[in-house]
């Protein structure tokens, strides 16, 4: 899979990171953020972002919405007599501080890592004599409290199940091996066969089994592989050959 770029829009880890940057850049007091200023600057940044990924963009837009809503609340006239209302910015400040705290911690951790990776751990080296030691198992321990009566009850139950399952007449015919083909297995098989190849004809995949069931399973497996993006399929016309390209590199 291609590595998606991290949430680096320019160099920001996310909306909170961008906000912290703006606050620091402007030397704003985090506890008294001039919300109109910061909203304007924030929106300006977001507008200039060349971001195709809507998921990422939406996260920045959600914050834009939050800022605008705080700004609106700040503009409302305060009711003096009412008990002190909470500052509309307080939730944002709490989030910014929490985020800042973990960001700070991540720097500390990074420093610790620089030192820690200088230690080398060794892989196990267990002497053969020890490794080959065979544990003595006491069957009595394994049986534990199980009684013969219980064992008998289990046996009767197993036999009853068997009778229920086996048709007394048909069972005399001997067994016909039913070859279970399951789609997952078939998918794995196809992926292995065509890995890295292009232009495989669907027909060649049918060489291993020509039973109706086998063809159906192979076809379903192909559809599933296409859906999950392991292969691409082309067909020139109705009833034309189905050509398969593996999208997995060797």
């Amino acid at each position, binding site marked *: 899979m291609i590595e998606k770029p*991290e949430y680096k829009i320019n160099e920001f880890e*996310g909306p*909170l990171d961008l906000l912290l940057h703006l606050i620091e850049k402007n030397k704003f007091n985090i506890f008294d953020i001039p919300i109109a200023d910061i909203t304007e600057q924030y929106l300006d940044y977001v507008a200039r972002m060349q971001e195709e990924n809507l998921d990422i963009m939406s996260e920045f837009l959600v914050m834009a919405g939050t800022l605008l809503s705080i700004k609106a609340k700040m503009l409302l006239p305060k009711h003096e007599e009412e008990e002190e209302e909470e500052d509309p910015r307080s939730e944002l400040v709490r989030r910014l501080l929490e985020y800042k*705290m973990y960001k700070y911690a991540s720097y500390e951790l990074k420093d610790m*890592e620089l030192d820690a990776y200088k230690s080398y751990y060794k892989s*196990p080296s267990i002497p053969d004599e020890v490794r080959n030691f065979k544990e003595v198992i006491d069957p009595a321990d394994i049986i534990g409290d199980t009684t013969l009566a219980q064992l008998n009850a289990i046996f009767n139950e197993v036999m009853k199940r068997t009778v229920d399952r086996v048709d007394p007449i048909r069972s005399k015919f001997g067994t016909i091996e039913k070859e279970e083909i399951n789609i997952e297995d078939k998918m794995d098989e196809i992926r292995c066969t065509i890995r890295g190849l292009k232009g495989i004809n669907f027909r060649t995949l049918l060489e291993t089994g020509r039973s109706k069931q086998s063809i159906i399973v192979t076809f379903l497996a192909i559809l599933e592989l296409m859906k999950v993006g392991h292969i691409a399929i082309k067909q020139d016309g109705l009833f034309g050959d189905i050509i398969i390209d593996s999208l997995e590199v060797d």
Partner: protein
Amino acid sequence: MEESVTRLEGAIEAILFSMGEAVPIKELSKALEVDEPTLEKIINNLIDKYDAEDRGIKLVKLEDSYQLCTKNEYYDVLSKLVNMPKKHVLTDTLMETLSIVAYKQPITRQEIEAIRGVSCVHAINKLVEYNLIAEVGRLDAIGRPILFGTTEDFLRSFGVQSMDELPVISPDKIEDFRQQAMEEVNIKVET
């Protein structure tokens, strides 16, 4: 049968050397037939012994386990001979996510995302792939979301003996940050 302390020290070294990986004190205690508190005392003393200059290895504690590893100071000479394990490059995103997991574990993806303000699926997957974090359980809530926590590899990679050893940034510390931030602001304003 009581064994002398020196023989126990030898046995501990033999076990940790052969096993290579971190060995829980519980298992050591069972194999050596020594109760955990006594064993812990012996190991602590052993840790000091390894500090001697002629030793190239040290005994480290990782939560409730013990492991031997080389001393950091020999990194340079070792890297001439040994292929040191590849170090994962941890981007800022990964580091942020990791630090949140480290301090707030067990924690769900949703909680991490609430703190970072962005989706963390990719970062979490990478950290799991690097075996720095792992599923530690499920939250008893709708959808039974996965709870993540740090792994033993995390402790090793960051030289942390136990979670209490993480740099202190507990929620109480927010107050310090506030103070600090305030001062910074004041200084900046003054200048």
